[in-house]
Protein backbone atom coordinates (compact mmCIF):
# COMPACT_ATOMS: atom_id res chain seq x y z
CA UNK A 1 0.00 0.00 0.00
CA UNK A 2 1.21 3.47 -0.70
CA UNK A 3 1.72 5.76 2.24
CA UNK A 4 -0.33 8.88 1.63
CA UNK A 5 1.72 11.75 0.28
CA UNK A 6 4.93 9.81 -0.02
CA UNK A 7 6.19 9.60 -3.57
CA UNK A 8 7.26 6.10 -4.58
CA UNK A 9 9.78 4.89 -7.10
CA UNK A 10 10.01 1.74 -9.20
CA UNK A 11 13.00 -0.65 -9.07
CA UNK A 12 14.20 0.95 -12.34
CA UNK A 13 14.21 4.53 -11.07
CA UNK A 14 17.98 4.87 -11.07
CA UNK A 15 18.24 3.56 -14.63
CA UNK A 16 15.74 6.18 -15.81
CA UNK A 17 17.59 9.01 -14.11
CA UNK A 18 20.92 7.74 -15.45
CA UNK A 19 19.41 7.61 -18.95
CA UNK A 20 18.55 11.31 -18.68
CA UNK A 21 14.80 10.79 -18.36
CA UNK A 22 12.50 13.65 -17.44
CA UNK A 23 10.85 12.38 -14.26
CA UNK A 24 7.34 13.44 -13.25
CA UNK A 25 4.94 12.46 -10.48
CA UNK A 26 2.33 10.03 -11.77
CA UNK A 27 -0.15 8.03 -9.67
CA UNK A 28 2.02 8.45 -6.59
CA UNK A 29 5.22 7.41 -8.37
CA UNK A 30 8.06 9.36 -9.86
CA UNK A 31 8.00 8.12 -13.44
CA UNK A 32 9.82 8.86 -16.72
CA UNK A 33 7.60 10.96 -19.01
CA UNK A 34 10.27 11.05 -21.72
CA UNK A 35 13.93 10.31 -22.37
CA UNK A 36 16.44 12.42 -24.31
CA UNK A 37 15.08 10.93 -27.56
CA UNK A 38 11.83 12.86 -27.02
CA UNK A 39 8.20 11.77 -27.14
CA UNK A 40 7.77 11.87 -30.92
CA UNK A 41 10.84 9.76 -31.65
CA UNK A 42 10.11 7.38 -28.78
CA UNK A 43 6.66 6.97 -30.31
CA UNK A 44 7.89 6.22 -33.82
CA UNK A 45 10.63 3.96 -32.50
CA UNK A 46 7.90 1.83 -30.88
CA UNK A 47 5.89 1.74 -34.12
CA UNK A 48 8.96 0.81 -36.20
CA UNK A 49 11.21 -1.15 -33.89
CA UNK A 50 10.81 -1.90 -30.17
CA UNK A 51 10.16 0.33 -27.16
CA UNK A 52 10.84 -0.64 -23.56
CA UNK A 53 8.43 0.73 -20.94
CA UNK A 54 8.73 0.58 -17.17
CA UNK A 55 5.19 -0.04 -15.97
CA UNK A 56 6.15 -1.32 -12.54
CA UNK A 57 3.82 1.24 -10.97
CA UNK A 58 0.85 -0.83 -12.12
CA UNK A 59 -0.84 -3.15 -9.65
CA UNK A 60 -0.11 -6.86 -9.87
CA UNK A 61 -2.58 -8.95 -7.92
CA UNK A 62 -3.08 -12.68 -7.45
CA UNK A 63 -6.37 -14.37 -6.63
CA UNK A 64 -6.18 -17.95 -5.45
CA UNK A 65 -8.46 -20.60 -4.05
CA UNK A 66 -11.13 -22.88 -5.45
CA UNK A 67 -13.72 -20.13 -5.74
CA UNK A 68 -11.43 -17.47 -7.25
CA UNK A 69 -12.78 -17.60 -10.82
CA UNK A 70 -16.42 -17.67 -9.80
CA UNK A 71 -15.75 -14.93 -7.25
CA UNK A 72 -14.13 -12.60 -9.79
CA UNK A 73 -17.15 -13.05 -12.07
CA UNK A 74 -19.27 -11.36 -9.38
CA UNK A 75 -17.51 -8.03 -10.05
CA UNK A 76 -16.66 -8.17 -13.79
CA UNK A 77 -19.04 -8.51 -16.78
CA UNK A 78 -16.59 -10.92 -18.39
CA UNK A 79 -16.33 -14.70 -18.75
CA UNK A 80 -13.61 -15.79 -16.33
CA UNK A 81 -14.69 -19.36 -15.59
CA UNK A 82 -14.09 -20.44 -19.19
CA UNK A 83 -10.85 -18.51 -19.58
CA UNK A 84 -8.41 -21.20 -20.78
CA UNK A 85 -5.18 -21.96 -18.97
CA UNK A 86 -2.45 -19.34 -19.54
CA UNK A 87 -4.79 -17.16 -21.56
CA UNK A 88 -5.23 -13.46 -20.86
CA UNK A 89 -8.48 -11.51 -21.12
CA UNK A 90 -9.38 -7.83 -20.88
CA UNK A 91 -11.91 -7.08 -18.13
CA UNK A 92 -13.57 -4.23 -16.25
CA UNK A 93 -14.55 -3.69 -12.63
CA UNK A 94 -18.10 -2.34 -12.66
CA UNK A 95 -19.78 -0.50 -9.77
CA UNK A 96 -23.40 -0.77 -8.50
CA UNK A 97 -24.54 1.71 -11.15
CA UNK A 98 -22.88 -0.12 -14.01
CA UNK A 99 -20.08 2.48 -14.21
CA UNK A 100 -16.47 1.44 -14.61
CA UNK A 101 -14.09 1.52 -11.62
CA UNK A 102 -11.05 0.38 -13.61
CA UNK A 103 -10.03 -1.89 -16.45
CA UNK A 104 -7.66 -4.80 -16.03
CA UNK A 105 -5.99 -7.80 -17.59
CA UNK A 106 -6.76 -11.24 -16.16
CA UNK A 107 -4.66 -14.35 -16.80
CA UNK A 108 -5.59 -17.88 -15.78
CA UNK A 109 -2.50 -19.29 -14.04
CA UNK A 110 -4.04 -22.70 -13.42
CA UNK A 111 -4.54 -24.32 -9.99
CA UNK A 112 -7.47 -21.96 -9.38
CA UNK A 113 -5.24 -18.93 -9.52
CA UNK A 114 -5.68 -15.72 -11.48
CA UNK A 115 -3.15 -12.99 -12.16
CA UNK A 116 -4.52 -9.46 -12.45
CA UNK A 117 -2.83 -6.31 -13.72
CA UNK A 118 -4.64 -3.07 -12.80
CA UNK A 119 -4.01 0.65 -13.28
CA UNK A 120 -1.49 2.32 -11.01
CA UNK A 121 -3.84 5.12 -10.03
CA UNK A 122 -6.55 2.63 -9.04
CA UNK A 123 -4.52 -0.16 -7.49
CA UNK A 124 -5.20 0.59 -3.83
CA UNK A 125 -8.92 1.08 -4.48
CA UNK A 126 -9.04 -2.04 -6.65
CA UNK A 127 -7.29 -4.08 -3.97
CA UNK A 128 -9.79 -2.88 -1.34
CA UNK A 129 -12.66 -3.61 -3.74
CA UNK A 130 -11.37 -7.15 -4.30
CA UNK A 131 -10.88 -7.67 -0.56
CA UNK A 132 -14.39 -6.41 0.19
CA UNK A 133 -16.19 -8.50 -2.39
CA UNK A 134 -13.95 -11.54 -2.73
CA UNK A 135 -12.06 -11.64 0.56
CA UNK A 136 -14.33 -14.28 2.09
CA UNK A 137 -14.22 -16.45 -1.03
CA UNK A 138 -10.57 -16.51 -2.07
CA UNK A 139 -7.10 -15.19 -1.28
CA UNK A 140 -6.31 -11.71 -2.60
CA UNK A 141 -2.63 -10.73 -2.68
CA UNK A 142 -1.11 -7.52 -3.97
CA UNK A 143 2.50 -8.11 -5.02
CA UNK A 144 4.84 -5.48 -3.60
CA UNK A 145 8.04 -7.07 -4.88
CA UNK A 146 7.35 -7.42 -8.59
CA UNK A 147 8.37 -5.15 -11.44
CA UNK A 148 6.61 -4.96 -14.82
CA UNK A 149 8.32 -4.21 -18.13
CA UNK A 150 6.57 -3.84 -21.47
CA UNK A 151 8.45 -4.49 -24.70
CA UNK A 152 6.35 -3.24 -27.59
CA UNK A 153 6.75 -2.94 -31.32
CA UNK A 154 7.24 -4.99 -34.50
CA UNK A 155 10.74 -6.04 -33.40
CA UNK A 156 9.74 -6.99 -29.84
CA UNK A 157 9.43 -10.69 -30.65
CA UNK A 158 12.77 -10.78 -32.44
CA UNK A 159 14.50 -9.13 -29.46
CA UNK A 160 12.83 -11.28 -26.84
CA UNK A 161 13.19 -14.55 -28.74
CA UNK A 162 16.97 -14.02 -28.86
CA UNK A 163 16.85 -14.34 -25.07
CA UNK A 164 13.98 -16.79 -24.81
CA UNK A 165 13.23 -18.69 -28.07
CA UNK A 166 10.04 -20.25 -26.69
CA UNK A 167 8.19 -16.92 -26.83
CA UNK A 168 7.74 -17.64 -30.54
CA UNK A 169 5.08 -20.17 -29.56
CA UNK A 170 2.99 -17.46 -27.95
CA UNK A 171 0.12 -15.65 -29.68
CA UNK A 172 -1.66 -12.44 -28.66
CA UNK A 173 -3.23 -12.68 -25.20
CA UNK A 174 -1.45 -15.84 -24.09
CA UNK A 175 0.92 -16.22 -21.15
CA UNK A 176 4.02 -18.20 -20.30
CA UNK A 177 6.41 -18.61 -17.41
CA UNK A 178 10.02 -18.80 -18.39
CA UNK A 179 13.53 -18.17 -17.24
CA UNK A 180 15.66 -15.53 -18.99
CA UNK A 181 19.27 -15.91 -17.91
CA UNK A 182 18.53 -16.83 -14.32
CA UNK A 183 15.51 -14.54 -13.97
CA UNK A 184 12.04 -16.00 -13.38
CA UNK A 185 9.69 -14.20 -15.73
CA UNK A 186 5.97 -14.32 -16.24
CA UNK A 187 5.22 -13.09 -19.75
CA UNK A 188 2.00 -12.20 -21.52
CA UNK A 189 1.87 -11.32 -25.22
CA UNK A 190 -0.10 -8.12 -24.75
CA UNK A 191 0.33 -4.39 -24.33
CA UNK A 192 -1.10 -0.91 -24.59
CA UNK A 193 0.30 0.42 -27.85
CA UNK A 194 -1.63 -1.47 -30.55
CA UNK A 195 1.62 -3.17 -31.53
CA UNK A 196 2.72 -6.75 -31.05
CA UNK A 197 4.59 -7.01 -27.78
CA UNK A 198 5.02 -8.46 -24.35
CA UNK A 199 4.51 -7.55 -20.72
CA UNK A 200 7.07 -9.14 -18.45
CA UNK A 201 6.43 -9.50 -14.75
CA UNK A 202 9.53 -10.32 -12.71
CA UNK A 203 11.06 -9.96 -9.25
CA UNK A 204 11.96 -6.33 -8.52
CA UNK A 205 15.53 -7.29 -7.68
CA UNK A 206 16.06 -8.57 -11.24
CA UNK A 207 14.40 -5.67 -13.07
CA UNK A 208 17.57 -3.70 -13.82
CA UNK A 209 19.32 -6.78 -15.09
CA UNK A 210 16.55 -7.69 -17.53
CA UNK A 211 16.11 -4.07 -18.66
CA UNK A 212 19.83 -3.86 -19.42
CA UNK A 213 19.70 -7.13 -21.34
CA UNK A 214 16.82 -5.87 -23.48
CA UNK A 215 18.41 -2.45 -23.99
CA UNK A 216 21.63 -4.07 -25.17
CA UNK A 217 19.79 -4.81 -28.43
CA UNK A 218 20.16 -1.95 -30.88
CA UNK A 219 16.46 -2.33 -31.72
CA UNK A 220 15.36 -1.28 -28.22
CA UNK A 221 14.98 2.21 -26.71
CA UNK A 222 13.43 3.36 -23.45
CA UNK A 223 9.99 4.88 -24.00
CA UNK A 224 8.28 7.06 -21.40
CA UNK A 225 4.74 7.77 -20.30
CA UNK A 226 4.34 10.59 -22.85
CA UNK A 227 4.69 8.28 -25.84
CA UNK A 228 2.78 5.55 -24.01
CA UNK A 229 -0.20 7.91 -24.04
CA UNK A 230 0.14 8.96 -27.70
CA UNK A 231 0.57 5.30 -28.72
CA UNK A 232 -2.55 4.15 -26.89
CA UNK A 233 -4.47 7.14 -28.25
CA UNK A 234 -3.60 6.22 -31.85
CA UNK A 235 -4.53 2.61 -31.05
CA UNK A 236 -7.91 3.83 -29.72
CA UNK A 237 -7.38 2.13 -26.36
CA UNK A 238 -9.36 3.38 -23.38
CA UNK A 239 -7.81 5.00 -20.34
CA UNK A 240 -9.45 5.05 -16.93
CA UNK A 241 -10.40 8.61 -15.96
CA UNK A 242 -10.84 9.52 -19.61
CA UNK A 243 -12.90 7.12 -21.75
CA UNK A 244 -13.72 5.03 -18.68
CA UNK A 245 -15.20 6.44 -15.50
CA UNK A 246 -17.53 5.66 -12.63
CA UNK A 247 -20.46 7.43 -14.31
CA UNK A 248 -20.51 5.62 -17.65
CA UNK A 249 -21.22 1.97 -18.39
CA UNK A 250 -18.93 -0.08 -20.64
CA UNK A 251 -21.60 0.25 -23.36
CA UNK A 252 -21.44 4.05 -23.11
CA UNK A 253 -17.67 3.70 -23.52
CA UNK A 254 -18.00 1.56 -26.68
CA UNK A 255 -16.55 -1.50 -24.96
CA UNK A 256 -19.27 -3.95 -25.98
CA UNK A 257 -16.58 -6.23 -27.40
CA UNK A 258 -15.24 -6.74 -23.87
CA UNK A 259 -18.63 -7.93 -22.53
CA UNK A 260 -18.57 -11.72 -22.83
CA UNK A 261 -21.52 -13.52 -24.41
CA UNK A 262 -21.78 -15.88 -21.43
CA UNK A 263 -22.50 -12.92 -19.16
CA UNK A 264 -25.05 -11.19 -21.40
CA UNK A 265 -28.82 -11.72 -21.42
CA UNK A 266 -29.53 -15.31 -22.42
CA UNK A 267 -25.92 -16.34 -21.75
CA UNK A 268 -24.88 -19.29 -19.58
CA UNK A 269 -24.07 -17.08 -16.60
CA UNK A 270 -26.04 -13.97 -17.44
CA UNK A 271 -25.60 -10.91 -15.22
CA UNK A 272 -24.80 -11.47 -11.53
CA UNK A 273 -22.12 -8.81 -11.31
CA UNK A 274 -22.21 -5.33 -9.82
CA UNK A 275 -24.40 -3.03 -11.90
CA UNK A 276 -25.60 -5.88 -14.12
CA UNK A 277 -29.12 -4.42 -14.53
CA UNK A 278 -27.72 -1.17 -15.98
CA UNK A 279 -25.16 -2.84 -18.24
CA UNK A 280 -27.64 -5.43 -19.55
CA UNK A 281 -30.27 -2.80 -20.23
CA UNK A 282 -27.70 -0.64 -22.04
CA UNK A 283 -26.78 -3.65 -24.18
CA UNK A 284 -30.43 -4.37 -24.87
CA UNK A 285 -31.67 -0.86 -25.54
CA UNK A 286 -28.55 0.95 -26.65
CA UNK A 287 -27.33 4.19 -25.11
CA UNK A 288 -27.66 7.83 -25.99
CA UNK A 289 -23.88 8.28 -25.91
CA UNK A 290 -20.91 6.28 -27.10
CA UNK A 291 -17.19 6.78 -27.61
CA UNK A 292 -15.86 7.71 -31.07
CA UNK A 293 -12.68 8.83 -32.75
CA UNK A 294 -12.41 12.44 -33.92
CA UNK A 295 -10.12 13.93 -36.53
CA UNK A 296 -9.83 17.69 -36.08
CA UNK A 297 -9.29 19.79 -39.19
CA UNK A 298 -5.93 21.57 -39.29
CA UNK A 299 -3.05 21.13 -36.89
CA UNK A 300 -4.34 22.34 -33.55
CA UNK A 301 -4.67 19.52 -31.01
CA UNK A 302 -8.14 19.16 -29.48
CA UNK A 303 -7.55 17.92 -25.97
CA UNK A 304 -9.34 16.29 -23.08
CA UNK A 305 -12.32 18.38 -21.91
CA UNK A 306 -13.04 20.23 -25.18
CA UNK A 307 -16.79 20.47 -25.82
CA UNK A 308 -18.25 19.25 -29.12
CA UNK A 309 -21.25 20.96 -30.71
CA UNK A 310 -23.06 20.91 -34.03
CA UNK A 311 -23.44 23.87 -36.38
CA UNK A 312 -26.53 25.03 -34.50
CA UNK A 313 -24.71 25.05 -31.21
CA UNK A 314 -26.36 21.88 -29.84
CA UNK A 315 -24.26 20.09 -27.23
CA UNK A 316 -23.03 16.85 -28.78
CA UNK A 317 -20.44 15.67 -26.29
CA UNK A 318 -16.99 16.10 -24.87
CA UNK A 319 -13.44 15.05 -25.75
CA UNK A 320 -12.16 12.36 -23.36
CA UNK A 321 -8.57 12.19 -24.70
CA UNK A 322 -6.85 14.17 -27.36
CA UNK A 323 -3.50 15.23 -28.62
CA UNK A 324 -1.19 14.65 -31.47
CA UNK A 325 -0.74 11.37 -33.33
CA UNK A 326 2.89 11.22 -34.46
CA UNK A 327 2.23 8.29 -36.84
CA UNK A 328 -0.47 10.25 -38.66
CA UNK A 329 1.33 13.55 -38.08
CA UNK A 330 -2.08 15.01 -37.22
CA UNK A 331 -4.08 15.88 -34.16
CA UNK A 332 -6.44 13.08 -33.05
CA UNK A 333 -9.04 12.86 -30.28
CA UNK A 334 -11.43 10.43 -28.65
CA UNK A 335 -14.79 11.78 -27.51
CA UNK A 336 -18.00 10.64 -25.89
CA UNK A 337 -20.77 11.83 -28.21
CA UNK A 338 -24.53 11.61 -28.54
CA UNK A 339 -24.91 8.94 -31.20
CA UNK A 340 -27.69 10.75 -33.07
CA UNK A 341 -25.16 13.38 -34.18
CA UNK A 342 -22.56 10.89 -35.39
CA UNK A 343 -24.25 9.63 -38.56
CA UNK A 344 -22.41 12.07 -40.77
CA UNK A 345 -25.44 14.33 -41.26
CA UNK A 346 -24.33 16.96 -38.76
CA UNK A 347 -21.23 19.08 -39.10
CA UNK A 348 -19.43 18.92 -35.77
CA UNK A 349 -17.07 21.36 -34.12
CA UNK A 350 -14.75 21.28 -31.13
CA UNK A 351 -14.45 24.39 -28.99
CA UNK A 352 -10.82 25.23 -28.25
CA UNK A 353 -10.02 28.56 -26.63
CA UNK A 354 -13.25 30.07 -28.01
CA UNK A 355 -12.43 28.88 -31.52
CA UNK A 356 -14.56 26.38 -33.44
CA UNK A 357 -12.49 23.61 -35.00
CA UNK A 358 -14.27 21.36 -37.51
CA UNK A 359 -13.99 17.69 -36.53
CA UNK A 360 -14.83 14.50 -38.36
CA UNK A 361 -16.18 11.44 -36.56
CA UNK A 362 -14.08 8.38 -37.42
CA UNK A 363 -13.87 4.75 -36.41
CA UNK A 364 -11.26 3.74 -33.85
CA UNK A 365 -8.41 2.86 -33.94
CA UNK A 366 -6.57 5.62 -35.78
CA UNK A 367 -3.64 3.28 -36.42
CA UNK A 368 -4.32 -0.36 -37.24
CA UNK A 369 -3.55 -2.88 -34.51
CA UNK A 370 -0.62 -5.10 -35.26
CA UNK A 371 -1.18 -8.02 -32.88
CA UNK A 372 0.35 -11.44 -33.49
CA UNK A 373 -2.48 -13.94 -33.70
CA UNK A 374 -0.42 -16.82 -35.15
Amino acid at each position, binding site marked *: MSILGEIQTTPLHKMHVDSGAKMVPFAGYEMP*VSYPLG*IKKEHSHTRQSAGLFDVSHMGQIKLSGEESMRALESIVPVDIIDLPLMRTRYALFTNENGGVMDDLMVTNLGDNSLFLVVNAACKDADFQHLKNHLGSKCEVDLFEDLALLALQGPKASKVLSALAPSINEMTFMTAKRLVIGDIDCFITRSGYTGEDGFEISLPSKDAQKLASLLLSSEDVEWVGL*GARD*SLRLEAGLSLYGHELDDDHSPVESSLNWALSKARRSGGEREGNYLGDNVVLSHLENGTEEKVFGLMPEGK*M*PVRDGAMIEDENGNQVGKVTSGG*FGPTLNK*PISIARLKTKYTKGESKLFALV*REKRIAVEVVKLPFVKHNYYRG
Partner: protein
Amino acid sequence: MSIKYSEDHEWVESKGDDLVVIGITDFAQEQLGDLVYVELPEVGDECVRGENISVIESVKAASDLIAPVSGSITEVNSRLEDEPEIVTEDSMGEGWFIKVKLSNPEELDDLMDEEAYNSFIED
Protein backbone atom coordinates in the same frame (compact mmCIF):
# COMPACT_ATOMS: atom_id res chain seq x y z
CA MET B 1 22.44 44.03 -29.25
CA SER B 2 20.80 43.38 -25.96
CA ILE B 3 18.77 40.34 -24.97
CA LYS B 4 16.71 40.19 -21.80
CA TYR B 5 14.78 37.37 -20.23
CA SER B 6 11.44 36.98 -18.45
CA GLU B 7 10.47 34.71 -15.57
CA ASP B 8 8.11 32.99 -18.00
CA HIS B 9 11.17 31.89 -20.01
CA GLU B 10 10.91 34.29 -22.93
CA TRP B 11 13.76 36.22 -24.49
CA VAL B 12 13.30 39.81 -25.66
CA GLU B 13 15.87 41.21 -28.04
CA SER B 14 15.96 44.98 -28.61
CA LYS B 15 16.38 46.02 -32.22
CA GLY B 16 16.36 49.79 -31.62
CA ASP B 17 13.48 52.25 -32.08
CA ASP B 18 11.52 50.48 -29.31
CA LEU B 19 11.23 47.42 -31.53
CA VAL B 20 11.80 44.00 -29.95
CA VAL B 21 11.81 40.36 -31.07
CA ILE B 22 10.33 37.81 -28.66
CA GLY B 23 10.83 34.07 -28.46
CA ILE B 24 11.08 31.31 -25.89
CA THR B 25 14.35 30.29 -24.28
CA ASP B 26 16.19 27.06 -24.87
CA PHE B 27 15.33 26.07 -21.32
CA ALA B 28 11.60 26.53 -22.05
CA GLN B 29 11.86 24.64 -25.30
CA GLU B 30 13.52 21.73 -23.53
CA GLN B 31 10.87 21.68 -20.83
CA LEU B 32 8.07 21.64 -23.40
CA GLY B 33 9.44 18.77 -25.45
CA ASP B 34 8.38 18.15 -29.06
CA LEU B 35 6.19 21.00 -30.29
CA VAL B 36 3.28 20.15 -32.55
CA TYR B 37 1.41 23.45 -32.94
CA VAL B 38 1.90 27.15 -32.32
CA GLU B 39 -1.05 29.51 -32.29
CA LEU B 40 0.18 33.01 -33.11
CA PRO B 41 -1.50 36.37 -32.60
CA GLU B 42 -2.18 38.64 -35.59
CA VAL B 43 -0.15 41.58 -36.80
CA GLY B 44 -1.70 44.71 -35.33
CA ASP B 45 -2.89 42.97 -32.15
CA GLU B 46 -2.01 44.75 -28.93
CA CYS B 47 -0.18 42.76 -26.31
CA VAL B 48 -0.28 43.60 -22.63
CA ARG B 49 2.43 42.52 -20.25
CA GLY B 50 1.34 39.48 -18.25
CA GLU B 51 -1.42 38.43 -20.63
CA ASN B 52 -1.51 35.50 -23.05
CA ILE B 53 -0.34 36.23 -26.56
CA SER B 54 0.13 32.81 -28.02
CA VAL B 55 -0.41 29.14 -27.26
CA ILE B 56 2.31 26.56 -27.66
CA GLU B 57 1.18 22.96 -28.01
CA SER B 58 3.62 20.19 -27.31
CA VAL B 59 2.86 16.49 -27.61
CA LYS B 60 2.11 16.60 -23.89
CA ALA B 61 0.10 19.76 -23.29
CA ALA B 62 -0.86 23.29 -24.25
CA SER B 63 1.11 26.13 -22.64
CA ASP B 64 0.50 29.86 -22.78
CA LEU B 65 3.03 32.34 -24.01
CA ILE B 66 2.76 35.30 -21.65
CA ALA B 67 3.62 38.74 -23.01
CA PRO B 68 6.82 39.91 -21.30
CA VAL B 69 6.24 43.50 -22.47
CA SER B 70 3.37 45.64 -23.79
CA GLY B 71 3.02 47.03 -27.29
CA SER B 72 1.60 46.33 -30.70
CA ILE B 73 2.57 43.32 -32.77
CA THR B 74 4.32 44.31 -35.99
CA GLU B 75 5.25 40.86 -37.31
CA VAL B 76 4.68 37.19 -36.50
CA ASN B 77 6.83 34.23 -37.48
CA SER B 78 4.22 32.44 -39.59
CA ARG B 79 6.73 29.71 -40.47
CA LEU B 80 5.99 28.30 -37.00
CA GLU B 81 2.43 27.46 -38.03
CA ASP B 82 3.67 24.74 -40.36
CA GLU B 83 7.02 23.98 -38.81
CA PRO B 84 6.76 24.33 -35.02
CA GLU B 85 9.87 22.14 -34.76
CA ILE B 86 11.95 25.21 -35.72
CA VAL B 87 11.45 26.34 -32.13
CA THR B 88 12.98 23.12 -30.88
CA GLU B 89 15.90 23.37 -33.29
CA ASP B 90 16.70 27.07 -32.92
CA SER B 91 14.64 28.68 -30.17
CA MET B 92 16.90 31.74 -29.86
CA GLY B 93 17.09 32.42 -33.61
CA GLU B 94 14.91 31.10 -36.44
CA GLY B 95 12.33 30.01 -33.88
CA TRP B 96 11.33 33.56 -32.83
CA PHE B 97 7.62 34.16 -32.25
CA ILE B 98 6.70 37.84 -32.67
CA LYS B 99 8.05 41.36 -33.14
CA VAL B 100 6.57 44.09 -30.99
CA LYS B 101 6.69 47.91 -31.03
CA LEU B 102 6.92 48.75 -27.32
CA SER B 103 4.31 51.05 -25.83
CA ASN B 104 6.16 51.26 -22.53
CA PRO B 105 9.90 50.74 -23.10
CA GLU B 106 10.64 51.04 -19.35
CA GLU B 107 9.16 47.55 -18.95
CA LEU B 108 12.44 46.23 -20.35
CA ASP B 109 14.15 47.30 -17.14
CA ASP B 110 12.06 44.77 -15.21
CA LEU B 111 13.46 41.87 -17.22
CA MET B 112 16.57 39.86 -16.34
CA ASP B 113 19.92 39.91 -18.06
CA GLU B 114 21.49 36.62 -19.14
CA GLU B 115 23.41 36.09 -15.93
CA ALA B 116 20.35 36.70 -13.77
CA TYR B 117 18.24 34.41 -15.96
CA ASN B 118 20.79 31.60 -15.80
CA SER B 119 20.81 31.71 -12.03
CA PHE B 120 16.98 31.97 -12.07
CA ILE B 121 16.64 28.67 -13.96
CA GLU B 122 19.15 26.96 -11.73
CA ASP B 123 16.90 27.44 -8.70
